[in-house]
């Protein structure tokens, strides 16, 4: 039973069809002959449909290899462009609950490019505190290179007040990058609100290895990859026509049925949370219960190691996740949960169940049935340490 849709979700049939159709055809979208023109048309139509689905202009859509590249391109590219315009702009305002695809470029800039990171305050739900963001922006706006805050959190599902954050940044004249990898296709995402938005194909029913950065016109970026200059000279590399066609099909499908699918997923998720909290003592829920991604349930199990739960659930055929990245393969307590104020022990005993469009009531019923005995066993192992 697959309850790890936030890691990756099955490709939508529309996306598979679009990809397979293009894989059988030849053509480099940069070539001038007929095959090239045909491929170029697919790429541009894909760009237009993605822009339309996200409220952006087609020229704003830059195809990349995925969410991590989009985040790196935006953060490093914005930082370099901003610093070269004004050398005082060394501060990066960043939420501590960001994905590693954001945290690591930010920390790398601090370590090697003189950047100064200002960690934004978040509350116990993982929401950025608007007052402290406003205060930081007001303090010395000329010293800020960029602000980066995710649209919705991949581990706990909390949705950030992006409209308010965007308003504060715009008022201060500071660009805002938003990691929208989990949000696109799950929540109403209006790219026009922000200056740059990262998205990834495989999180929304498209293929792996493709994504996009939606970059508002007039925002300058220093490129990371140099070469053919295929994407407005901001991103080089031969365009992956099958993947781009498939990404567009997936985004169109996901945005098209977003509300009905979201309601269904949310109902299943709420049922899961309610029944687990009701049947197992010592369980608490992490993240915003209201303003959340529809499919994510992050739960802490007192007295358990997340690892032990994962092993036992895996043996029972249930696939979920600790929701946190690994350092050298060794599971660390989630930086997101720690930033929300959880103690390391509780953070280590946390699991993320993430539902998606293939999840069913039967999945939830089965999980709720087997989980109590698994938690009991994991608690015994926990006390054996």
């Amino acid at each position, binding site marked *: 039973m697959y309850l790890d849709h936030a890691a990756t979700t099955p490709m939508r049939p529309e996306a598979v069809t679009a990809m397979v159709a293009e894989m059988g055809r030849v053509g480099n979208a940069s070539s001038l002959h007929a095959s090239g023109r045909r491929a170029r048309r697919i790429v541009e139509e894909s760009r237009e449909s993605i822009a339309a689905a996200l409220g952006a202009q087609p020229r704003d859509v830059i195809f990349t290899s995925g969410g991590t590249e989009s985040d790196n391109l935006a953060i490093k590219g914005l930082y370099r462009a901003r610093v070269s315009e004004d050398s005082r702009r060394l501060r990066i305002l960043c939420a501590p609950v960001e994905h590693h695809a954001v945290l690591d470029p930010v920390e790398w800039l601090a370590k090697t490019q003189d950047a100064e990171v200002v960690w934004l305050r978040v509350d116990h739900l993982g929401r950025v505190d608007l007052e402290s963001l406003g205060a930081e922006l007001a303090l010395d706006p000329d010293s800020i290179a960029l602000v980066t805050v995710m649209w919705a959190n991949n581990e706990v599902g909390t949705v950030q007040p992006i409209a308010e954050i965007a308003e504060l940044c715009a008022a201060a004249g500071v660009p805002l990058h938003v990691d929208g990898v989990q949000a696109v296709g799950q929540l109403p995402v209006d790219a026009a609100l922000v200056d740059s938005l990262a998205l990834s194909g495989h999180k929304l029913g498209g293929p792996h290895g493709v994504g996009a950065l939606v970059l508002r016109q007039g925002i300058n970026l220093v490129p990371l990859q140099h070469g053919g200059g295929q994407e407005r000279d901001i991103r080089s590399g031969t365009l992956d026509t099958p993947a781009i066609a498939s990404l567009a099909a997936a985004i169109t499908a996901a945005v098209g049925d977003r509300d009905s699918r979201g309601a269904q997923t949310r109902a299943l998720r709420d049922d899961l949370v309610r029944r687990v909290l009701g049947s197992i003592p010592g369980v608490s829920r992490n993240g915003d219960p209201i303003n959340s991604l529809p499919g994510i349930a992050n739960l802490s199990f007192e007295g358990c190691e997340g*690892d*032990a739960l994962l092993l*036992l659930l895996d043996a029972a055929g249930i696939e979920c996740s600790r929701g946190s990245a690994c350092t*050298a393969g060794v599971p660390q307590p989630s930086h997101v949960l720690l930033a929300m104020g959880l103690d390391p022990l509780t953070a280590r005993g946390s699991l993320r169940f993430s539902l998606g469009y293939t999840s069913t009531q039967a999945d939830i019923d089965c999980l709720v049935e087997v989980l109590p005995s698994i938690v009991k066993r*994991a608690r*015994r192992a926990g*006390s*054996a*340490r």
Partner: protein
Amino acid sequence: MHVVPDRPAEMSPAAPLRIIAALSGGVDSAVAAARAVDAGHEVVAIHLALSRSPAAERNGSRGCCTVEDSHDARRIADVLGIPFYIWDLSERFQDEVIDDFVAEYAAGRTPNPCLRCNEKIKFTAVLDRALALGFDAVCTGHYARIVDSENGRELHRAVDPGKDQSYVLAVLDEQQLASAMFPLGDTHKDEVRAEAARRGLLVADKPDSHDICFVADGDTSGWLHSRLGDAPGEIVDAVSGEPLGQHDGAFAFTVGQRRGLGLGRPAPDGARRYVIEVDTASSTVLVGPPTLLDVDLIYGDKARWSGPAITGVTAARVQVRAHGDTVPADVDVLGDGVVALLGESLRGVAAGQAMVMYDGTRVIGSATITRATRQ
């Protein structure tokens, strides 16, 4: 097809067991896990993360728990088609093995960290966790045999004398042995490598590990100094009492050691000098001729019994270092330890090492050496 020699009882099970197979990323544990899978057991692989800051890559035969090792372990589990997890036991390893290693050297003894790791990590921390999670046993790539005889479960030497690891497993008591599985005890190392190659395990040619895994560069003395600092003192002639030179930390010396004394001049009779005694309290290292290292009476504490404890004087053969020879001895229980009166003398017996008692190939038990003297 290879000929499968006689397997210990648990490798041809009546009912499959749930097994935790510890994969180091090396060839031995890989083949051990493969055999457990072949025997029909339900096997889950784990890799132990024992270092708090693992190096990225292996450096020849040195070090362990690198990121590369954990990738190799994961790949082995993939090939075997079994689940794979990393268990972070770095804190337990620090507390139980590394801190103990430093404390033992600081007290002038010579500890065996592999033995300590088997006792406290693999067959306590891992085993307890495995049992609590509903597993029946822990399987490793150690070279030793478990034999279920009419007298109960016994630990025996491996058939490959060059690889036999019964010495570092002799600390396991009956209860730990009851949940241990060593599928390689009846096989020679070269056959294990050949089997790994036949099974398509890409680690078939990986070098064996040697030395102490957490002393990455092999310089134990330098490593100890980095933790204990310097404690200068004198190197004294054990016979004449004459000061011969200086050292910067008695803890870094081991009884029986010959190299690295830095005395610059030979003994008057031209004989080589050896470390005879290490006294960290007074920071004194006594050196002298090798004959002073000959002992025939060994005391040990913290006795551990692989089967029933001995009662009264028992004839055995004892081994006092990992790859040393055995000598005949009469052993007896003394308090929570043992005393061994050797039938022939042994040279250079360091306190802190294990004295393992054998009856033929069978391990009787072990004790930590506290004192070795002449009768």
